């Protein structure tokens, strides 16, 4: 069973395994630096559907199907499904996954949803409440743009601090301890508000949450950046990454050499015109499911922290002049399980 360490961190003593992952991307993501690692790149932004919202649903459906195929499982083998996306009332998940017939939990964690769904899935396995659980999330540039910003055909300039919502979906299946990557510990984040109001600077809104969650994890586990190969944040992009490094340096944690951000991995900022970098649920999910999980499985990455961040606003709250609070959830992913598993097993 899990052990509470410190105030915020939960060690998952059975070390649940991520037994499979799949990532689906759009054209721009496919042309990016890790484009070749996606399981499927769809060059039609509509995914053969009638609307951007249905396109995102179809992308989630494809991601779920792909991960099931890769693990040689059928929907009936999965006991619970944790899913979410950025659209109002998370319709992309609802419409995309309705045909699977898997008991369903809908989540909203903005762009932190991949970490949120993975944490809940791992807890389910750790608590022996299920044998196999799926975590899935997505974002689509076009559906997000028209909901949060402007119609696609509207002529406007993007601020240099703004981020590009990824068209991508990622899905993982979590099961009992069997193979790397193992989920060794999780830290659930609190909602953090540092008075940021600029809709075009999400990285700045989310960096304080990432900093707090990472700091709490280090304090709880008595570890530091040197204990990990990689500290991977979800979608802070360039502005948020710089701020995170500075915030943590003030706490005497120098993460510069270990830190990477999915928003900076997914696109080439030099040639792909994404301003500060990528964002969206699909950004963290796509990078994790295509590039990171296989790298841990092959032993290229041994111990890492996956910290997906979300900006918790809505178009209404922004128009009413409210702040943009952020959140960050953390998972310690590793190529080796927690020692207790080897000693005591599941007895």
């Amino acid at each position, binding site marked *: 069973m899990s052990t509470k360490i410190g105030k915020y961190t939960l060690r998952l003593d059975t070390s649940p395994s991520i037994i499979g992952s799949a990532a689906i991307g759009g054209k721009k993501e496919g042309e990016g630096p890790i484009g070749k690692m996606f399981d499927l790149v769809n060059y039609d932004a509509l995914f053969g559907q009638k609307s951007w919202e249905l396109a995102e649903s179809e992308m989630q459906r494809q991601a779920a199907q792909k991960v099931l195929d890769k693990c040689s499982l059928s929907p009936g083998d999965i006991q619970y499904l944790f899913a979410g996306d950025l659209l109002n009332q998370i319709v992309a998940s609802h419409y995309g996954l309705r045909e699977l017939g898997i008991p369903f939990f809908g989540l909203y964690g903005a762009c932190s949803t991949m970490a949120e769904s993975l944490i809940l899935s791992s807890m389910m396995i750790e608590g022996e409440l299920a044998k196999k659980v799926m975590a899935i999330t997505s974002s689509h540039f076009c559906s997000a743009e028209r909901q949060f910003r402007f119609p*696609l*055909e509207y002529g*406007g300039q993007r601020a240099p601090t703004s981020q590009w919502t990824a068209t991508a979906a990622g899905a993982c299946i979590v099961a009992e301890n069997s193979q790397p990557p193992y989920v060794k510990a999780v830290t659930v984040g609190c909602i953090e508000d*540092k008075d*940021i109001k600029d809709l075009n600077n999400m990285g700045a809104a989310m960096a304080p949450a990432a900093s707090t969650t990472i700091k709490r994890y280090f304090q709880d586990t008595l570890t530091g950046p040197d204990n990990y190969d990689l500290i991977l944040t979800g979608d802070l992009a360039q*502005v948020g990454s*710089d*701020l995170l490094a*500075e*915030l943590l340096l003030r706490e005497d944690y120098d993460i510069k050499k270990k830190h990477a951000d999915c928003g900076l991995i997914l696109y080439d900022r030099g040639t792909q015109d994404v301003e500060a970098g990528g964002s969206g649920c699909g950004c963290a999910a796509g990078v994790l499911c295509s590039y990171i999980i296989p790298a841990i499985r092959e032993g290229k990455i041994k111990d890492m922290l996956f910290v997906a961040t979300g900006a918790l606003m809505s178009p209404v709250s922004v128009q009413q002049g409210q702040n943009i609070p952020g959140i960050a959830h953390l998972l310690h992913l590793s190529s080796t399980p927690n020692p207790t598993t080897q000693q005591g097993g599941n007895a």
Partner: protein
Amino acid sequence: METVTNQSYDQMVKKASPPSKSARNISMAFLVGGAICTLGHALIRLYMSMGVPEETAFPAASITLVFLSALFTGLNIYDKLAKWGGAGTLVPITGFANAITAPALEFKSEGYIMGLGAKMFIIAGPVIVYGIAAGVVYGVILYLFQLY
């Protein structure tokens, strides 16, 4: 625990955020905006040379530009131009037409009435509201003080 206050974080954010490339943006706005207006002027001259009276040639030129803007918006050209032109494509009447056409086209997926018809004004609506309201206020002042 909290060593960084909201105020000091605000300073950090300002330092970390790259500024807009204003010199480039403003020159591009000047060039693109100037070019659109020059095209408008050429249209006015063209219509007047065809014998159209001046008070009709001016609105006719505006209408022609509005037509071109609606067309280029539909062809996905206007937003690409706006990426470079900035306010140069926003401030001329073509920007107004783009602000009407873009949501109409984008929200067609929600139907012709509540989608295209209603959402057409989500960006440009305020321009009409405050323009007309200012005109009525002006008219009432004119009437009350018999200034006309």
